[in-house]
């Protein structure tokens, strides 16, 4: 400790310099007290009666008041009451200076709000000691108030944060399709926030995905993981990716976002649109149960993997189970909250008791199991989140078919579109089909036809480029190796292309309440003999493009010695 610090700590030993209000109707008394206090480094203000004291107090906010009792106009008791009222809850010590010595008077000093008293004549040592003591009390009081204010603020903040968090969770889970008729579920969190997560979504091919996840712990910390998990799940299911890829995506996301000691046991299931197959990935979950349509156990499925969020991406194992199921088979998936539920003696519910619900034909095992678990735990209170899912295997009635806006012939205007591609653009190898489809697909009434339009444009473009401009020979494609050679040649010829042009014209018109897209491609190639075109056989791995175009379009015409193709596609209303 250096010299400066010692000085500071010394001065902290004596009373901190304070602003002190001295109230006394005798000037000599005021002066005497003033000297004593100023000697100790305090600042002194004086008032000669109660009324002036209150006014001065409000004006200067002193740290401590020395108050005489008997004064004209307003006595010390009145003034103290007024000051304490003015202060509200804030603490500024008021010490009475009194010549009265009877117990009743002294008691009154304290009962009306005074903090202490000093008997006249004033002893300087006692005065200084009392001032120091009250200075400490005042400091403690201020600290307490400060901490109280902080606590109140923190509490409000936490409540506010919980409200926000709840909204976020509800938002994250809102897209879930748990009301699908193939699903029954029971969710019972142990705290406000659920560490279990159950989501459902449809796939673009009409199947139904479900995700059950059980985070380590419960309450808010466990629930935090639900946000990234649901985000990844809904993104992946919208794209229709496989169960094993979803598992991998979820693992990658959790591994990245969660602290090391936090992870999630999970079961990801997909029922295909026909309801005939369940693909199931399970990591760290209790055994799933597959029953027949009567509810009798067919198969127990053990988790084959580690929970999500532990393994790094390159270590991750994504092999799923594929269950071929029969109509109305039922799959039960649940979190460990069920087998580990405790009764009043602290004994676990256990797997054996759980399996009894599936040992004989029971039409309503779902409700019986839930009721049995609730009875078992009695009033002991739930210690972990409980989630149960029943998935019935039958065709999925997905609401996925979102009707594209229908075509309204009467209000659709004709338009025309042209794109010219020279060797410079073509040799870069990018197909214009995606861009063309997006642009044309945005025109009124075309959206619903985008996929077929994509197919038609792909095939037309491939033919014009590969046979017209690059002059590749389909005969190459007759063998598997030749097929590879064909596309290698394509890449090679395309890279070194230095002349050639391909023009795409698309025209939309309405005729007799029907819309038509006329698509025309002109290439700068040598053309071909239009009459020599043969249909391909079932086994030929080439020549199928034209067949596709012909079945999707109303008409297909070749002209200009085979350098022009024109197709018409009908847009019905």
């Amino acid at each position: 400790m250096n010299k400066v610090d010692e000085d500071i700590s010394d001065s902290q030993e004596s009373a901190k310099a304070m602003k002190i209000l001295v109230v006394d109707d005798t000037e000599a008394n005021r002066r005497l007290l003033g000297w004593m206090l100023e000697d100790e480094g305090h600042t002194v203000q004086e008032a000669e009666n109660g009324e002036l004291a209150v006014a001065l107090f409000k004006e200067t906010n002193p740290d401590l008041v020395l108050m005489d009792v008997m004064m004209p106009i307003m006595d010390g008791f009145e003034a103290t009451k007024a000051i304490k009222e003015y202060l509200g809850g804030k603490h500024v010590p008021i010490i009475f200076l009194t010549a009265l010595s009877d117990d009743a008077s002294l008691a009154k000093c304290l009962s009306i709000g005074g903090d202490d008293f000093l008997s006249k004549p004033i002893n300087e040592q006692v005065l200084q000691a009392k001032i120091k003591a009250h200075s400490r009390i005042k400091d403690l009081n201020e600290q307490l108030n400060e901490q109280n204010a902080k606590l109140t603020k923190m509490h409000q903040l936490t409540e506010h944060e919980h409200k926000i968090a709840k909204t976020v969770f509800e938002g994250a889970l809102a897209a879930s399709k748990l009301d699908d008729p193939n699903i029954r579920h029971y969710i019972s969190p142990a705290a406000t926030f659920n560490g279990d997560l159950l989501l459902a979504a449809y796939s673009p091919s009409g199947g139904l995905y479900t995700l059950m996840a059980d985070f380590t712990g419960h309450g808010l910390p466990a629930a935090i993981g639900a946000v990234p998990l649901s985000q990844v799940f809904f993104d992946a299911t919208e794209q229709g990716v496989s169960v094993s890829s979803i598992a991998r995506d979820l693992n990658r996301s959790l591994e990245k976002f969660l602290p090391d000691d936090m992870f999630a046991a999970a079961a990801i299931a997909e029922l295909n649109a026909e309801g005939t197959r369940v693909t199931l990935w399970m990591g760290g979950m209790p055994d799933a149960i597959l029953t027949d349509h009567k509810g009798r156990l067919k198969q127990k499925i053990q988790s084959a993997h580690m929970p999500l969020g532990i393994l790094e991406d390159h270590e991750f194992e994504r092999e799923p189970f594929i269950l071929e199921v029969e109509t109305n088979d039922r799959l039960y998936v649940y979190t460990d909250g069920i087998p580990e539920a405790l009764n009043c003696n602290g004994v676990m519910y256990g797997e054996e008791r759980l399996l009894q619900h599936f040992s004989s034909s029971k039409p309503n095992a779902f409700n019986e199991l839930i009721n049995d678990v609730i009875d078992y735990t009695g009033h002991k209170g739930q210690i972990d989140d409980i989630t149960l899912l029943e998935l019935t295997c039958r065709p999925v009635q997905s609401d996925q078919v979102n009707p594209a806006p229908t075509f309204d012939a009467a209000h659709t205007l004709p338009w025309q579109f042209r794109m010219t591609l020279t060797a410079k653009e073509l040799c870069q190898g990018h197909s214009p089909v995606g861009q063309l489809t997006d642009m044309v697909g945005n025109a009124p009434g075309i959206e619903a036809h985008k996929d077929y339009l994509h197919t038609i444009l792909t095939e037309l473009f491939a033919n014009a480029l590969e046979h017209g401009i690059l002059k590749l020979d389909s005969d190459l494609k007759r063998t598997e190796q030749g097929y590879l050679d064909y596309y290698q040649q394509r890449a090679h010829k395309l890279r070194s292309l230095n002349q050639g042009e391909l023009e795409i014209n698309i025209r939309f018109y309405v005729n007799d309440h029907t819309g038509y897209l006329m698509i025309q491609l002109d290439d700068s190639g040598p053309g071909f003999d239009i009459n020599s075109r043969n249909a391909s056989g079932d086994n030929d791995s080439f020549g199928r493009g034209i067949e596709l175009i012909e079945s999707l379009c109303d008409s297909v015409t070749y002209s200009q010695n085979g350098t022009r193709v024109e197709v018409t596609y009908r847009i019905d209303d």
Partner: protein
Amino acid sequence: MPVESTLSSDGKALTIGISGRFDFEIVQEFRSAYAEHNNLDYIIDMRACEHMDSSALGMLLNMRKSLGDNARISLINCRPQIKKILTISRFDKKFIIE
């Protein structure tokens, strides 16, 4: 990865998942996905496949030729527009299409 192949836990079925566009751009990857695996159930999972063209049809026929007429090859989870392409090309004669 546009082509991902996964062996089932019992080692009897090979699932080849195709995502995005199924066309000549993935001709090599698609071929190597089944090339080293014999006598399995082959499942081509089309759930994440948005478009396929005639070159993909050719690739499927090459797969059929290479694995032989007795191999069980299924195309599953096809979107409607892809199912239509497969139907137009009468692929239901050579493949199991769900």
